[in-house]
């Protein structure tokens, strides 16, 4: 059996790196009372972005502007959810997405269709800003 270093073993197009599993190495794992733990004071790589959307005036303004800029035409191909567009989109894949996320969930489980590994990479062109920041920061850390 080939030993694949875990930090590189992300399947399904998963991105990996020490940064992504740091919290597990530092916050999970067996702790034995009789042992002491090395001090984590001064650890800098533990900085974690808040990526979920936070309610604040700045966020409101940013999202209002983002909505304003949304290209409803090209966006339709990526996320065919606008009711007025749904009827025109006939590709497979439009089906689940035009519904609520919860009703889509059941289909996700039952469908279980194959997706080529490279398939996931197609989304990388339109990653949100936060994600790109993470990637570049991760590179810096690995240097």
């Amino acid at each position, binding site marked *: 059996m080939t030993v694949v270093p875990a930090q590189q073993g992300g399947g399904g197009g998963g991105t990996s790196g020490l940064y992504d599993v740091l919290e597990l190495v530092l916050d999970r794992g067996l702790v034995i009372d009789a042992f002491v733990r090395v001090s984590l004071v001064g650890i800098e790589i533990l900085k974690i972005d808040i990526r979920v959307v936070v309610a604040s005036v700045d966020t409101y303004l940013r999202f209002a502007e983002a909505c304003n800029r949304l290209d409803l035409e090209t966006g339709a191909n990526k*996320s065919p959810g606008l009711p007025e567009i749904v009827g025109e989109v006939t590709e497979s894949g439009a089906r689940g*997405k035009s519904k609520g996320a919860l009703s889509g969930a059941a289909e996700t489980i039952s469908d279980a269709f194959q997706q080529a590994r490279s*398939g996931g990479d197609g989304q990388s062109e339109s990653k949100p800003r936060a994600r790109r920041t993470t990637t570049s920061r991760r590179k810096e850390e690995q240097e």
Partner: protein
Amino acid sequence: MSTYVYGIARGSHPELPEQTTGVGNPPMPVRALRVGELAALVSDAPEDLRPKRRDLLAHQTVLSEAGAVGAVLPMRFGSLSSDDESVRTVLAEREKHYLERLDALDNKVEYNVKATHDEEAVLHQVLAEDAELRALNEANRAAGGGTYEQKLRLGERVVAAVQQREKRDGELVRQALEAAAGAVSPGPESSGWLANVSFLVDRDRTADFVEAVDALRKEHPHLVLQVNGPLPPYSFVE
């Protein structure tokens, strides 16, 4: 000199390759301390051990390599014992408990999944679901972006809708993947993802798990999923 402990394995765990090294600079050789039916994977601890990248990676690598040939209970990074003898004492005292955990984690690996939203895609979705939001957005556009108040009004409602969706999608990620896993453990909090969940997956079923992730990705392109694994089962040792 104190002893650095990487993990606990069965006494019958295959010997580590001789060159296996762990934390420290230069890296300390890793050895097995056997007691009863258990073996602790340890090395001498460097004098000034700190959570540096190289050492964190060394900890992780020792556990990954040892875990690939037999069950290992991964210790949290930075566990130090005063000496080898104290490690033996702890193992002897709790032998039965650790053997039970080793049985439970036999042939299992951890996959950690983190999810965020593709912002543009999720904005499309919330607008698609709410005619009022679309109308507000159109009104702002017609007004060349809208006034400060108009922007706040739209933005506040959009943010609320996105937050609601984050909650829903967090649950969705967990539900969609738990069928392909033996156990689920929420990741450490405060990390700011809409989902940060670890799954315990049978080594023989990792392909199924990865397939489930791919299916989820395909079905919900507004989700950005980051998968890490196979990992030592950090989140499932207790």
